[in-house]
């Protein structure tokens, strides 16, 4: 009885109610912006994140270039330098690590309490999944683009069109991988599982992606694994554009490229697979956050 009467009295005190849909869009923007502010403020991390790719590129690249020349092996006979070959793979690696970790920074937000501020706000919680995925993607994209600057040093001459294509590709890759990070973090309560994720997901994904060796002519079991690794569909198109721009002949390129049963996979299809994967993962993350009521 009295409860009903309170409800009738309520309109008197009603204030401007928050439009949840608009509030959610604003929240996505704010979560994204916060990630960038933090990224910008933590410049040592940006520099630090470049060290690993550079080690791979300079030491592993130079070392294996010499070794392969000596052995006179495979595709690398045809004037293809190993450092040039792994350069796109190293971009993929930088994007992979940065994306996954940015996505997983949700766990930090949970541990240090900030996530609560977002979860109790009058917004749809899908904003967390979307905002974090976009924030992680932007950060990883910047990391990847910084590596593009190194192209001349590994003997890659890029055309403006190639650069444009690469930016789009790197963003797609960063988006999909950030979604993976967010989806993992949505179910994790502490940093305890972090090492697990690193060893059982991130590193295998890197090694199987074709970043360090071509994904063609491999044993059957490994070929299968490389085809289910989403990173493969990011590294391969980046490599085809980079090597194409630096004048590697078409037949050599085709021999190195991702194929389904001997048929070279068109780049648009690879991008579609990559984005579809990212979207599915983001939806999983989204439902995980929504369910946390």
């Amino acid at each position: 009885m009295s409860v009903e009467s309170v409800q009738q009295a309520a309109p008197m005190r009603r204030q401007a109610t928050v439009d949840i849909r608009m509030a959610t869009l604003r929240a996505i923007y704010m979560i994204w912006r916060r990630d960038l502010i933090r990224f910008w403020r933590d410049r040592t991390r940006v520099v630090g994140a470049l060290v690993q790719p550079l080690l791979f590129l300079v030491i592993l690249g130079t070392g294996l270039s010499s070794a392969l020349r000596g052995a006179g092996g495979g595709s690398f006979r045809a004037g293809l330098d190993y450092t040039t070959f792994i350069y796109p793979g190293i971009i993929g690696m930088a994007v992979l690590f940065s994306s996954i970790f940015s996505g997983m920074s949700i766990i930090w937000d949970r541990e240090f309490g900030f996530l609560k501020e977002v979860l109790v706000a009058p917004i749809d919680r899908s904003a967390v999944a979307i905002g974090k995925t976009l924030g992680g993607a932007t950060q990883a994209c910047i990391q990847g683009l910084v590596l593009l600057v190194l192209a001349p040093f590994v003997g890659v001459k890029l055309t403006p069109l190639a650069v444009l294509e690469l930016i789009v590709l790197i963003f797609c890759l960063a988006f999909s991988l950030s979604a993976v990070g967010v989806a993992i973090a949505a179910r994790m309560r502490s940093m305890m599982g972090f090492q697990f994720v690193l060893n059982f997901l991130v590193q295998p994904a890197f090694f199987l992606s074709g970043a360090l060796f071509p994904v063609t002519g491999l044993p059957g079991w490994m070929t299968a694994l490389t085809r289910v690794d989403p990173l493969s569909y990011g590294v391969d198109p980046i490599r085809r554009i980079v090597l194409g721009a630096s004048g590697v002949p078409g037949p050599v390129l085709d021999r190195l490229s991702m194929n389904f049963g001997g048929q070279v996979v068109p780049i648009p299809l690879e991008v579609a697979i990559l984005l579809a994967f990212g979207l599915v993962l983001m939806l999983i993350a989204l439902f995980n956050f929504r369910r946390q009521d």
Partner: protein
Amino acid sequence: MTQNSVEAGAVVETRGLVKTYGKVEAVRGIDLTVRSGEVFGFLGPNGAGKSTTISILCTLVKPTGGQALVAGVDVTRDPGAVRSRIGLVFQDPSLDDQLTARENLEFHAFLYNVPRSERKARIDGVLEMVELHERAGSQVRTFSGGMKRRLEIARGILHFPQVLFLDEPTLGLDPQTRRRIWAYLHDLRKREGITLFMTTHYMDEAEFCDRIAIIDHGQIIALGTPDELKAMVGGDVITVATRDAEAAADEVRRAFELEPATERDGLRIEVPDGASFVPRLMRELTVPVSAVTLSRPSLDDVFLKLTGKAIRDEGAGEMDQMRNMMSMWSRAGGRR
């Protein structure tokens, strides 16, 4: 509670609120009404159901039964509307310490749709209220615990909520900082006419509340003003320090027909209204008196009488309580 008092401006109202986790009944039928503009305190030992109740009111936990209205809105029917009308200050910090104070507030203003035209003035206003305007551009990681709590209070009221929920707002702060936080809270109520709903286990702080509910085993066992609650345990205690306790006791017996208890160096007298009794007592006593102390029953005594436990015993549980809160949070928001 009559219906009239409810219509006079209830901001929080619950009827038969129940929450069970499996077989555990955390909240067992809570009825309470918090009036607009009052400071309402929620006291109870750990695991009494305080945190669960506050979580239900803040739409973080769904009740198993009963009804709860906050700012006139049913918490289960329209949690979004409830969230936009309440402010929250958690037990553990929820600021981004890599952002500046101002950035934290901007983030909040954006989430809660404080109109663009008012945003800056409002942020400046709340920063000034908690005396942090000079540190607006500093990253929160450089702040002390007390400053962080003040910033959280400022953030909690940024979007003009009707009621501010505070879960142990002064937990872990030193006494001086605690007093300052209370000064801000009272100032806040005066300026904004906001209702404060808080849990605390510092008894001296509970005194600052207009009304207090004591909760134990998921039920409210006492509700009233601090004075009303204290009246439940009996009168004031006056101790008179004197060398000649026997003679003094005789005089008291003759003049007031009271039976004082004689102690080693004095008397102990229980009266309903100690403040007005002391002057009369002084007029009647001829024996030299070295000191008189008047002590009123404290909420500690009330708590002890009602629950059979001293709230101080719970001190060791502060960390547990935080942990409980957190595990409840993750259970509520967890992997189900």
